């Protein structure tokens, strides 16, 4: 802007050009963009997000990764096991071919089992969270928007679900359900069962939050404005309210995933998860308990669970800070 001062009699070219650029730059930042900028500045959250992405990639490309080492998660390597102690011959069996060593007793490769375990763990955690969020959002919005009797019924149902002895139910259900049911068999049936048990009983947490948010949104004047324009219920719910509910739903989904990972691991540990020989982190921990003198067997699946849960939690916390800076 100093140029026009230096040469006041010259035609002022830079100023209109700058004004034109300014006008073109008037493109509002949405709340989402602002949250993204805030999130980018949060190093811990970004680290969490990177680990999460890494874990997802590992799960998706598990066969390729394991194949690169020439291993199979269910293959026995009895020749590398010392039959007298049941432990791998050199203590852990860690070598370039077996990064995390070998299982005692049958000598399966721990690395490939941990990698494949990520598949089951994340698949169940994601699908169960999706189910919880779907049911929770639907019923939460319904309860909050319509209020009255509908709200009472849904809220009481949530209380019942929260009081439900979920673990006992899951153990009982796993015992009852046969190997073949609903047209599903084997691992698919087990995964579906776990998704149902974990997802179906966790929705009240999301439901309560969504209901509360909807209650407060309903009293905002922009809802009245839409109604005074003649908007119907679905328009108000989907166009006016849901965009405002995305942030809390996203936050609680990211925080629900790690708790579902833990729950799946717990169920597998108790033997009611996906059945062996399919590798799961919880199942490996359960096996490792018998060999507590050989700690590396317990260490790697345990670390996998720990890192996964920590990464999701750090990312979720960062997401909450970015999306809802007032809630701190």
């Amino acid at each position, binding site marked *: 802007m100093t140029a026009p001062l230096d040469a006041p009699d010259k035609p002022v070219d830079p100023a209109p050009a700058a004004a034109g650029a300014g006008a073109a730059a008037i*493109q*509002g*930042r949405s709340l989402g963009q602002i949250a993204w900028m805030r999130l980018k500045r949060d190093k811990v959250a970004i680290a969490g997000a990177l680990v999460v992405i890494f874990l997802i990639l590992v799960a998706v490309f598990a066969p390729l990764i394991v194949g690169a080492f020439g291993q199979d998660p269910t293959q026995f390597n009895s020749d590398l096991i010392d039959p007298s102690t049941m432990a791998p011959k050199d203590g852990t069996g860690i070598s370039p071919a077996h990064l995390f060593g070998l299982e005692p007793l049958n000598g399966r490769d721990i690395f490939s089992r941990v990698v494949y375990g990520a598949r089951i763990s994340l698949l169940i955690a994601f699908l169960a969270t999706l189910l919880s969020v779907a049911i929770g959002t639907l019923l939460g919005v319904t309860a909050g928007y319509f209020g009255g009797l509908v709200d009472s019924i849904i809220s009481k149902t949530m209380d019942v679900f929260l009081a439900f002895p979920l673990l006992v139910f899951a153990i009982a259900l796993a015992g009852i359900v046969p190997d073949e049911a609903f047209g599903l068999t084997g691992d698919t049936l087990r995964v579906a069962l776990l998704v149902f048990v974990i997802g179906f009983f966790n929705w009240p947490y999301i439901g309560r939050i969504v209901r509360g948010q909807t209650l407060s949104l309903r009293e*905002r004047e922009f809802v009245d404005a839409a*109604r*005074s*324009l*003649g908007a119907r219920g679905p328009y108000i719910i989907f166009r006016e309210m849901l965009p405002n509910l995305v942030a809390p739903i996203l936050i609680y989904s990211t925080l629900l995933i790690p708790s579902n990972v833990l729950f799946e691991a717990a169920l597998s540990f108790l033997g009611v998860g996906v059945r062996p020989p399919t590798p799961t982190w919880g199942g490996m921990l359960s096996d490792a308990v018998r060999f507590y003198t050989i700690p590396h067997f317990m260490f790697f699946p345990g670390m996998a669970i720990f890192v996964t849960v920590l990464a999701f939690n750090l990312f979720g916390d960062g997401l909450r800070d970015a999306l809802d800076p007032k809630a701190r």
Partner: protein
Amino acid sequence: MTDSLLSVQNLQKHFPITKGMLKRQVGAVKAVDGVSFDVVKGETLGLVGESGCGKTTTGRLITRLIEPTGGKIVFDGHDITHMSQGRIRPLRRDIQMIFQDPYSSLNPRHTVGAIVGAPFRIQGVQTEQGTKKAVQEILELVGLNPEHYNRYPHEFSGGQRQRIGIARTLALKPKLIIADEPVSALDVSIQAQVVNLLEDLQNELDLTYVVIAHDLSVVRHISDRVAVMYLGKIVELADRKSLYESPMHPYTNALLSAVPIPDPKRRKDRERIRLQGDVPSPLNPPPACRFHTRCWKAQEICSQVEPPLLALATGHQVACHFPENAPASGDVAVTGAGAVTAEGALQAGGAGDAAPGEGPAGKGTASAS
């Protein structure tokens, strides 16, 4: 009455209070209890009163955001009192509302374009050059930069946000606009801008306003006629000049004396009326004249006979047994209390509107009706 755009007759809204499991009704908050007025095309009616007197409820009843308990609302020849939401939808284009809080009335997740374009989308209105062009024209009309189309509400100041709200209101070219405290959430300097904008728009687009406010100076600036509400009833309804210069109802007097005067010298000259006590609960309003518990002129009759809203001078209706500043022949009207129905009083008011400025010449004629 033919030229009245909006006619409200004996409008009531009682909010029930329920108790216990079975939702037994134990009482009702009489937020609006028998309000009648007419709004003529092109005029601005101010609705004033203190907090909780039912002004906002009246506005929401007219826009049918809430269901009236009783009475009648006639808009442009249609009885919309209990019209179903489906049937009232086309009429909603003609009745629009400006909301009080510009921070709550705009959806934070929508762009300005989406907010101002919402009326077109909801009502399914197609415009010749497309919605975007139409929205940008309206933005320009209310003094906003059309380039702001893609911005979000949080990027604007309070005054700008209220302009966005006004733009949304104007989108479908309504006939009647209910402005619920349109400026009370804004800074005083911005208030003047917005009030002047409303006036300019009225001249330009031939709008009719019902302005709800508690700020008497704002109402004085913008209104042609002013209705004063107290505890769910209209106590005085007059054209602006006669209301502010010769208020008849004691409550109006008290209200006007509470308006701050910025000049300390002039302030001393004025006698300030201080009302005793609080506004009684609308749950259990005082019998007969609702103001008698706080009125310094109250006599026995005030707690026994409810004063009807009578026209004591041309276009000046008041509900009081002992009005102040009443014309000499005012006594006639007082003795005739009860004989004149609300309907009659309304017609008298309407007749007064037809010949504004008649003022002193028409004194006392209304009492004969």
